[in-house]
């Protein structure tokens, strides 16, 4: 016990886990914005039959236990799975137990938390404004970037915060796909688990307490900002 008391609040391993977590969450959020925005636009606008099934697939990670998602990702990305065989044939090896694999898994896991807020924002967008933009010589993509995106800003803010925070908070998927490799796949949530397993409660407290504070601040930020920049009615 005396040994622990001499240690700093966070060890080098803890800092590495924090940095890895931050990198994972940022990269995942960025990828999700790129994939999620067109997906959200399509879901918000389409009236085709596939709207309901597609929405359900996007929402699956909300209800599934992370272990289920992780299990199937492990199989498809593993040496015998279709994605695994593809990556292997491209000379990339297989994705499980790598940082890239973790990013891909996180993208699936956090997808609904990014798509749904953006979709909601697009659904409340007044389409007459898009028509007005077209009568003002804006091409469709131009109108999207100059009118739809700025109008949907609160939705994007919510999407970024939820996507980031949710990725930071993942555990089950990480264990299934990433394992527990220091500097590669050992994120904060796994590090906490390790500390608890080794009875290092003080260390676990610093990280766990930090997560609580972080999550609270993030959510507080979201609710405050979204109240502040609510769009005026046209």
């Amino acid at each position, binding site marked *: 016990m005396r040994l622990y008391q001499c240690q700093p609040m966070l060890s080098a391993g803890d800092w590495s886990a924090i940095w890895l977590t931050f990198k994972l969450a940022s990269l995942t959020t960025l990828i999700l914005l790129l994939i999620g925005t067109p997906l959200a636009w399509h879901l918000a606008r389409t009236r085709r039959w596939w709207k309901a099934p597609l929405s359900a697939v996007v929402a699956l990670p909300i209800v599934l236990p992370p272990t289920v998602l992780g299990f199937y990702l492990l199989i498809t990305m593993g040496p015998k799975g279709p994605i695994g065989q593809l990556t292997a044939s491209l000379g990339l090896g297989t994705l499980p137990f790598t940082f890239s694999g973790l990013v891909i898994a996180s993208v699936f896991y956090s997808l609904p938390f990014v798509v749904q807020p953006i979709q909601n924002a697009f659904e409340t967008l007044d389409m007459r404004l898009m028509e007005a933009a077209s009568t*003002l*010589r804006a091409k469709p993509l131009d109108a999207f970037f100059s009118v739809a995106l700025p*109008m949907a800003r609160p939705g994007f803010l919510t999407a970024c915060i939820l996507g980031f925070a949710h990725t930071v908070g993942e555990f089950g998927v990480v264990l299934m796909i990433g394992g527990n490799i220091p500097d590669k796949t050992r994120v904060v949530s796994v590090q906490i688990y390790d500390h608890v397993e080794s009875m290092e409660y003080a260390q676990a407290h610093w990280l766990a307490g930090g997560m609580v504070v972080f999550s609270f601040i993030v959510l507080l930020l979201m609710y405050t900002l979204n109240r502040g920049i609510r769009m005026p009615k046209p």
Partner: protein
Amino acid sequence: MSEINQDTLHARFQLAFSDFTLATDLQLPGRGVTALFGHSGSGKTTLLRCIAGLQRPDSGFLQVRGQVWQDSTKGVFLPTHQRPLGYVFQEASLFPHLTARKNIDYGRKRATQSANDAELAAIVDMLGIGHLLDKIPAQLSGGERQRVGIARALALKPQVLLMDEPLAALDLKRKQEILPFLERLHRELDIPILYVTHSPQEVTQLADHLVVLEAGKVVASGALAETLTRLDSPMAQGKQASTVLQVQVCGHEPEFHLSQVQFAGGVLSLPYQQAAVVGTALRLRVYARDVSITLQQAKQTSILNVLPADITGMAHDREGRTMIRLNLGGVPLLAHITQKSAVQLGLQKGTPVFAQIKATAIL
């Protein structure tokens, strides 16, 4: 195609919905205000949206000032952003995240031919929005938003201005505030304006040409005075039926609080027009219910305006009214009288009569 005047707007559209079908074939003049009039569901807004390319008809042909914008037989369809038009929406549809100035610049920046700074200053001045430019739409009143919306469309230097009930969302006070600007627009612009409305008041105040739509079909189309007085047109029926007279101020009698105006049919007295100097052109609206008919010119009557006229058409409605179309020196005028009077006076097509027009009935 050779018979089509280069200066006109030719619009032919076929568009089937589940509940009604739009089928129009219109030749509209290349200048002045054309009112597309009809009740809600008559297809007037759909017609405007087809012209703008916002709605794609099943088949259609559209030529504006000699340029084909759309021809379904040849697969030609210019998307909206490539059509040199200006569109004013019913709800202004300003971008809420941009100031009035940036709203106006939005289209100006993107159009190949748009107003330069001096022309924009003239537009801003004409619409009286100079003091509003740095405000966002939420800080503007409905009428101010609509004026900014009109400026935004005009800054594109469009070949045709499309206006979809620009006053419908405004209360009476705001309408009165914006109508003078529209009249000014009408006087100062050299481009055709297509103006969708369901208000006979706006038609008589602004339009030069009138297209009446009913259930997706054009039931009347032509010069305003002619079309207003067509007895088979829905506008000639009902309490709001009226005629428009283009007149010129020719004298004042301030002691009686009256002014005199002249037109091809004669001279009329009307309430004193203090602001109008002699020679000013005015547009008068005369309600059909305020025009009565006598066979002889009454010598002693309180009615000041008694003008000779011929009956050029008569129609009866189911409520005991007779609608009479008169000709006053070439100018058409509508009169609504009771069917009983029409019978007692023995009125017929061609009968020479005198039209008595109540002066106060004139706008």
